[in-house]
Every structure is written in C-alpha cells, then in structure tokens.
C-alpha cells in the first residue's frame, strides 16, 4: 500500500491529510463470571501518515486492548462489541481470516513489551526474520537472508549476529531484533506496546533514538503505548490519555505537556518527580481506578478528581475545547451535555 507523502506542517505531521487509520467508537469487553468487564468503552481516534501517536494510561486502562483490537489478535474471553477500525477504506473488524493474514504485518506490525518472551529461543534471529518475510511474501531463501541482514543493520545490530540465538544477545539487542522483525515488510503503521519498559534507562534511551531515526528515514506511523508520560512527550506528535477504558484527553504532545486540560492528565504530570528545580512536594493521584464491571454512571475519574463538582454525575462529552485539543471533562463548556448544564444551573 502506498503512503501519501504530502507536505508536512510545522509539527511534522500533515494535519489535513487523510488519516492512515481511524478507530471509531471501539468497545471491547472481557467476559467474566461477575459480568462483562468494559475494558475499552467507546474509543475514537485516528493516526496520520508519518505520525507518532502516543497512547498513555495506567495498567488496566485498556491501552493494550486497543492495540490488540486493531490487529484483531484479542483472545477469548475478549470480544469486540462495537466500533469500526478503518484502514485504507476497509474495516478491519469485518475482515475474513484470509484478509487478516494479508493485512497483519504487511500493513500493521507490532512490537510487544517483553523482547525476551516474543522471540523464539531455539531459532536464530536470522531465521526468525526470514520467517516473518516468507510468511507474507514469496521470496527465495538467499534473498530473504540478504533482507534480514539489511534489517539488522538498519536497527543497529552487526550483520554478523544473524546466526545468534536470542540468549546470546543482550536485552537491548533482543529488542532491536524484535523491531527488525516488525520492519520486515516495511509496514506503514507499527504498534509499539511498552517497547522499552523492561530495559534499563541507558538502553531505553538508545532504543528510543533508534526508533526515532527509523521513523524519520522510513516514514512509517507509530502507535506508541506506554505508562511513562515523560517518554511519550519526547517521541510523540500527538498524545491520547486513557482512563478506565476511555480517552479523556487528546492533543498535540507539547500542548498536552504544557497545558493539560483534564484533571487526570494534570495528576499524571505531577506524578513524576522532576530532575531540576526546587523540591516540591507532589501528591500523585490518591485512590484507584473504578471497577469496570460496574463503571460509575458519570465521569469515571470523578471519585479521584480534586476538581469534582455538580455535573460530574453525568458523562462528559469528548469534545474539542481548543482547536485540535479534545477533552472529556465538565470543567470545559464544550464537554457539557444539556443534563450537565442543568446540574450547574441548579447550584
């Protein structure tokens, strides 16, 4: 598939361009004896060509479930109950198994969290890369091997390591090898789910630099998922913040960092002790996320929110409070339903 290479605006992403992928009102439930867990409950966003879209949130907020739904690799008891995932005009959720096999890896590939667990321990990394290539393309063995060597060089591993087994590589090199496999078919979108979480900070920095360089050289888009907001602000063009199965804020990365609108985003920002400046006592966010079997009727963050007020018993709309900056919070008039406005008037 061809990637539209339109002129970029100042932020490095063609804001007006047609999105590469669009996720609309996605709902995923995990069936449990206590009732369905609404892990993803109405998520809408798009990713533009060449853009890094960051998806942040705490464990259990549904960010990895979104990634797995896009690739349709969710396993029972998870079920997609609603929504559309539009890629190149096709709804991924309607695809047959054959279509999915074509689509996966060629159009969207994925880098999983733990490189140690996602490589086969009894196969050389060269074999694992050629495997990925030949599963999708008819290519003679020697050519596939050449391509594998090229991919290793691209991600910063000496081609001589092609016959190494995963245990002979360090954690950072294994993660590079996993990225090489994801690059194998040159897909326009790569999903990276916590790709550096298991690594030390120095190695993490090296991998992040490599990812950033590859993105510039090859021009693919990334859906980058992590709980580490400071990492995300560094690499992303736009960031979506998820809480309890929903996106609560979505904006340009720098704007989100400098002027967060949602109290949850604010709380996340003040959860990272800074390395510079005066020592300020931080508070984090007291409390814990709601039970998604019985989510609260109104705003899901209300119980932990320091700025909770009357209308928060009703659900806020995910609306544009500033140009290109969407938020779901009653503090902003754009998010208020008629019901919420009434609640404010009554007080």
């Amino acid at each position, binding site marked *: 598939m061809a990637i539209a290479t339109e002129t970029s605006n100042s932020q490095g992403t063609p804001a007006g361009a047609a999105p590469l992928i669009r996720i609309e009102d996605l709902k995923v439930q995990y069936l449990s004896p206590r009732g369905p867990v609404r892990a993803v409950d109405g998520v809408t966003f798009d990713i533009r060509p060449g853009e890094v879209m960051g998806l942040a949130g705490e464990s259990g907020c549904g960010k990895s479930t979104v990634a797995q739904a896009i690739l349709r690799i969710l396993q029972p008891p998870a079920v997609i109950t609603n929504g559309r995932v539009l890629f190149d005009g096709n709804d991924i959720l309607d695809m047959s198994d054959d279509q999915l096999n074509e689509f996966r890896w060629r159009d969207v590939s994925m880098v999983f969290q733990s490189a140690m667990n996602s490589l086969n321990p009894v196969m050389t990394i060269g074999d694992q890369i050629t495997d990925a290539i030949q599963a999708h393309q008819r290519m003679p063995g020697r050519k596939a091997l050449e391509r594998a060597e090229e991919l290793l060089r691209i991600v910063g591993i000496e081609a001589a390591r092609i016959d190494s087994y995963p245990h002979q590589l360090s954690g950072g090199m294994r993660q590079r090898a996993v990225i090489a496999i994801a690059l194998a078919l040159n897909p326009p979108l790569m999903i990276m789910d916590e790709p550096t979480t298991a690594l030390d*900070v*120095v190695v*993490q920095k090296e991998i*992040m*630099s490599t990812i950033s360089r590859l993105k510039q050289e090859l021009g693919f888009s990334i859906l980058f998922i992590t709980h580490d907001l400071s990492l995300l602000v560094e690499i992303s063009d736009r960031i979506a913040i998820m809480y309890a199965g929903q996106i609560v804020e979505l904006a340009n990365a720098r704007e989100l960092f400098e002027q967060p609108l949602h109290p949850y985003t604010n709380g*996340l920002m003040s*959860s990272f002790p800074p*390395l510079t400046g005066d020592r300020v006592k*931080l508070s*984090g966010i007291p409390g814990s996320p709601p039970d998604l079997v019985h989510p609260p009727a109104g705003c899901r963050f209300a119980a932990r929110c320091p700025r909770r007020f009357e209308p928060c018993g009703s659900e806020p709309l995910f609306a544009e409070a500033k140009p290109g900056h969407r938020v779901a919070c009653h503090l902003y008039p754009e998010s208020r339903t008629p019901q919420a406005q009434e609640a404010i008037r009554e007080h």
Partner: protein
Amino acid sequence: MSIDRHQGGTATVAQRSTDFVMEVQHLTKRFPVGGVLDKRAVHALQDVSFSLPRAKIVALVGESGSGKSTTARALARLIEPTGGRILYNGRDILREEPRSASLSYREDVQMVFQDPFGSLNPAHTIRHAIERPLRIHRKAKGRSAIRERVETLLETVGLTPPGETASKYPYQLSGGQRQRVAFARALAVDPKVMLADEPVSMLDVSIRIGVLNLMERLKEENGISFLYITHDIASARYIADETNVMYAGRMVEGAESRELIDEPAHPYTQLLLSAVPNPHAGLRTDEATTRGEIPSLIDPPPGCPFAPRCPHVMPECQEAMPGVTRLNAHHWVRCHLHGSGQGEPTANLPV
C-alpha cells in the same frame, strides 16, 4: 512547599558510629559460577562501602545487575557476604552473630520487596499477614491488643478504614494498597532500618508518589532510616537525603541527592542522568554517545568497571580501581579523573 536541603550553612561532620545506624565497609560478595571444577565466580559486590545516617533516606541507584539488591540482601542477612564488615550501631554483626542474625537484629532491620503481588500470601487476610510478626516478635499480647495494633498500623500507612482493610484478601487490594500492607507488616516490629528494594517500580505512576511520601513520613515521624533502592534517579532526588550510584558491583559516587544530580562527577552518573527522559528538552535523535551495556561480572579484569564504556578513559583506568576522592564535605567519587584519594565514602550530610 519547597524544601532546600542546602540550608543550614556549614556542614557538621557526622560523628562516627553515633549518627550512623549502619556502616558498610568493604563489602564483597562472590557467587560461584557452578560446576565442580569451575573456579570462576560472579563478583556481585566488590569493595562496597557506605553509611546509613539515623533517620535519613539513602538511595542506591544503578542499572539491573549493578548489585543494588545484593547489597540490601546482605544487610538483611538473607545472603552471607564473602568479605567486609557490617556495623549496626557500631557492632560488627557479621562477627558477633556469624551463623545467622539474632532475633533482635531481624526485628530492627526490615525489608520491603519490589513485588507486592508476590510478597503477600494470597490465602490469608491482611489481618493475618500483619498479626504474624506481632506474635513472633511478641510485640502485642492478647487478642484485643493485637487487633488494635493491626488497625493502628494500617492507619499509619494510610489504609482506611483499617477494620475493613484488615478483613480483605490480597487479591481485593490494588498494587499500591498491597505495598502499603507490606510497609505495615514491616512496621509491626518497630524497625530502626528499612531496606526498600524497588518498592514502587511495579506500581502505577499515579500511586508511586503516595508510597514515596509514606516513606518520607515514616522517616520523619518514626525516625526510621531507609535504604531506598531504585533505578529511577528522579525518585531518589525526590525522597533521598543522600544518593549513591552503583555500577557493576561497585559504588562509584555518592553525594547529597541534589548535588549528585546537579553536579555529577563520575562519567557513569553523567551517562545515567543524560538517559532520563526529559520532556522539556525533547528527544535528540543522535544515537547516544556511549554504547554498550554492563560488563560480565565473572572474574572481571582489574581497573574501573566503567572503563570499556567511558568516554574519558585513560591508561590508568585499566590498571586499578581508584580510591575515594572527596570533592567536598558531602560529595565523593571513585574516578581517576578526580584523582585517587584515600577518603571515606560518606556524604556527611548537613545536619
């Protein structure tokens, strides 16, 4: 609220053994590689020295495999060091209690582990988990006294209402709540020292600060000394009075926390700090200047372990590990760039 630790003018040099609850001197730990004929050993700790002042938080930072947890385990006497001394209130405990730690030492020195999901027995209630140390160490007698003490402890760590929490099982609590239970359990025996091994690494970011604040409150209100082990140097700056940096089994630098971060002297500390994500600056796409990872600890060559990665490496770095150079009253470093002194590796924090 802004706390400036530099206030207070001239630093008073701490009196040995009276202001330090624990002193670690030249601690060494070697693990045999295995195999009957294999004489090789993993040098997990080499010549590790530092001191833990009373009612202060001292952080140990470094990458995985640098020896942070081994240090904590040696202090808790979960593993026996190969060499060196551990002074507790001036007593050489490895010599006085050679076989295993006495009950009173185990009472005074408590450990909190990284994984709050693995450190609580899933088959028992929280009440049971906290009652056990109370009974074993005879800290409360009689049902109602024990019950009362359990609830006070839960209240201390911020789990309210305590009666309700006590009757729950671990699976009913979040990670942050479980880690608070682990602290309550350690507190049950009135410890003087807490060894906290990555206590917030597995917790969600929004609740980490709460647990860090709890440690600081226990330091201030209960006078507990903490050894805080972490790979997150920003959190060390946030709660630790003093921060020490470990690399490949060696202690390479130590200072008052803000000074360490504002003026790192060791090239490894500088590398560590440059790798911390910085949203203010944005990611630079040039590949990091220093490549490579922590070296093998099996029979390492002499010299500074960081030499193979160090951008400032000199011939003498390959030959011997430098001694301790004092840069000022509360900052020391072991690096040939700063000379090769004979100083003491204590930060001598301003009182």
